[in-house]
């Protein structure tokens, strides 16, 4: 492990992958520094999983280059395989086998001899809180337990680079927090983590840098702070005491924030995007002003919050188009339309 931390963990240039008529990757350029959590953010079908599969040597690219710790994924796949571990979108464990059997299997395949494989498996089951479930078939595990076993299998032999492909999709909040804690501990041990996610919030909490990808290309890259600044501060969410005051509140908010206001399904709720000038506290100030203007207009506010921009808002700001997820209808915002050309 002495050669670690020299040069980037991942470098791709012009990576292309075509499935039929679909260009899943259309010239992807990524540089992931070693020893960090790097977030790859994008909607379904953006190319996140395709990129991970190419980097883990599971898929051959149709063009471009990809290197992991300097080793080309096509020319030297075995050197790459020896350094990476993969936790895919679908749990990479055998449902019919028990938790312990799964770990022993992977330990043996990594080259541990039988007694060492057993020891290692015992330690990991303990560390991941799965000792009680060790002898149960994985198909009887909860989603969170399955995910933990999956990550345990990935760090059986401490990898230099760990791919986590949407590790929290489908998990309940508590299990998601556990996974986040685990990721933080893993990266603190020096492992580089490539995390793909659909949630800006998740990338923001864990990643040192984030690449936003869409249609197989990187459309923005930077620290979470830079990314959010380029997007705006997010949305103001307001809940009124009295539904009859909503038309008045809508007028006050849209004037104070100079932005269209969306009426939520809940008759007392309103949402407005704060078109920040790129500087966060300016947006916060405007939100605060809006709050005092609501009070001045005699409107009773039960709850007021300034939320982070959602992935939809990030995409709206970066591409002028909403994500292709069938999520929220985009809020029509003329301020960002000039960026459409990008």
């Amino acid at each position, binding site marked *: *492990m002495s050669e670690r931390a020299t040069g980037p963990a991942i470098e791709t240039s012009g990576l292309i992958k075509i499935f039929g008529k679909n260009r899943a990757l259309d010239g992807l350029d990524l540089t992931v520094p070693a020893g960090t959590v790097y977030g790859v953010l994008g909607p379904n079908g953006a190319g996140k999983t395709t990129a991970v*599969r190419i980097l883990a*040597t*599971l898929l*051959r690219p149709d063009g471009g280059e990809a290197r992991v710790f300097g080793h080309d994924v096509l020319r030297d796949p*075995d050197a790459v*395989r*020896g350094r*990476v*571990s993969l936790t*895919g*979108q*679908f749990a*990479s*464990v*055998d*449902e*019919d*086998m*028990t938790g312990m*059997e799964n770990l022993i*299997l*992977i330990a*043996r*395949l*990594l*080259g*541990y*001899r039988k007694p*060492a494989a057993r020891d*290692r498996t015992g*330690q990991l089951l*303990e*560390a*991941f*809180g*799965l000792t*009680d*479930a060790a002898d149960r*078939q994985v198909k*009887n*595990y*909860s989603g*969170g*337990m399955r995910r*933990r076993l*999956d990550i345990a299998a990935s*760090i059986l*032999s*401490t990898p230099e680079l760990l791919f986590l492909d949407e590790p929290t999709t489908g998990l309940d909040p*508590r299990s998601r927090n*556990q996974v986040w*804690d*685990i990721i933080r*501990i*893993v990266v*603190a*041990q*020096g*492992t580089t983590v490539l995390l793909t996610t659909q949630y800006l919030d998740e990338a923001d909490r864990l990643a040192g840098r984030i690449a936003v990808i869409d249609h197989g290309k990187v459309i923005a890259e930077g620290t979470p702070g830079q990314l959010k600044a380029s997007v705006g501060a997010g949305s103001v969410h307001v809940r009124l005491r009295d539904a009859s005051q909503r038309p008045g509140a809508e007028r006050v908010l849209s004037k104070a924030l100079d932005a269209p206001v969306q009426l939520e399904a809940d008759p007392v709720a309103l949402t407005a995007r704060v078109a920040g000038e790129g500087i966060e506290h300016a947006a916060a100030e405007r939100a605060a002003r809006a709050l005092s203007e609501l009070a001045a207009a005699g409107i009773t506010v039960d709850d007021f919050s300034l939320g982070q921009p959602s992935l939809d808002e990030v995409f709206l700001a970066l591409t002028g188009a909403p994500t292709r997820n069938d999520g929220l209808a985009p809020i029509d915002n003329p301020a960002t339309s000039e960026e459409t050309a990008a």
Partner: protein
Amino acid sequence: MSATTTETSTTYVPAAETLSAVMAPGTRPRRPSALSASITFGWRAMLKIKHVPEQLFDVTAFPIIMTLMFTYLFGGALAGSTTEYLQYLLPGIMVTSIVMITMYTGVAVNTDIEKGVFDRFRSLSIWRPAPMVGYILGDMFRYTVASLVILVVGLVLGFRPDGGAAGVLAGVGLLIVFSFAFSWVWTMFGLLLRSEKSVMGVSMLVLFPLTFLSNVFVDPETMPGWLQVFVEVNPITHLVSAVRSLMGGATDTGEVTLVLISSAVLVVVFGTLTMRLYNRK
């Protein structure tokens, strides 16, 4: 079948000390040998049989039914008596049953691909064919079970081979060697086809003509000339002749050699195709 436990996941809090301790970079073990990796995958196949014992149904009930059905269906008509016919039929029905259950190798490969665990295997630094060899090693156990089941049924019904225990053992051994080789056809289809159903469909399409258009049930001399040509080149015919000769105590070295050669060819051709697909998947 216990209920999913949620209490374990709700009480679990990842502890930095314990997790860091298990991640402490020890020396990475050396990559396992080709043999060790293959045997590990074979062990997995055995565990799966242990956890899902229903899958042994195919290798027990199916051969029993085949043996009973054909013995009593054709015995009287073809050989005058069922016991008489059994001496001719049993080696053939054993070959047919075992060759037919080789297709489950393809089904197992195909169902695994659908699951994430296959990706993990492919991303490990191990001898590339090891997962495939592992499937087949596990299946060889199934072939052995099926052979024994048929043998026992045969003995009960009156099968008395002249080759004795040694001859029968050699016959079963040769059959398993051939089945190991033939399974590579199914690993290829398992990787090639999109669904379990299509794997089954193609398997049937290949297996029915291959096993029935042979010398398993009747002497080829009664068949029309064009069919005899096919029967003569069909590797199953040679396998049946070889197994019959071994069990009958009059070893036909030529046929046995032919079977061993065709096994080697099957492994080289379909093993290569399988690995090409596996690497490009």
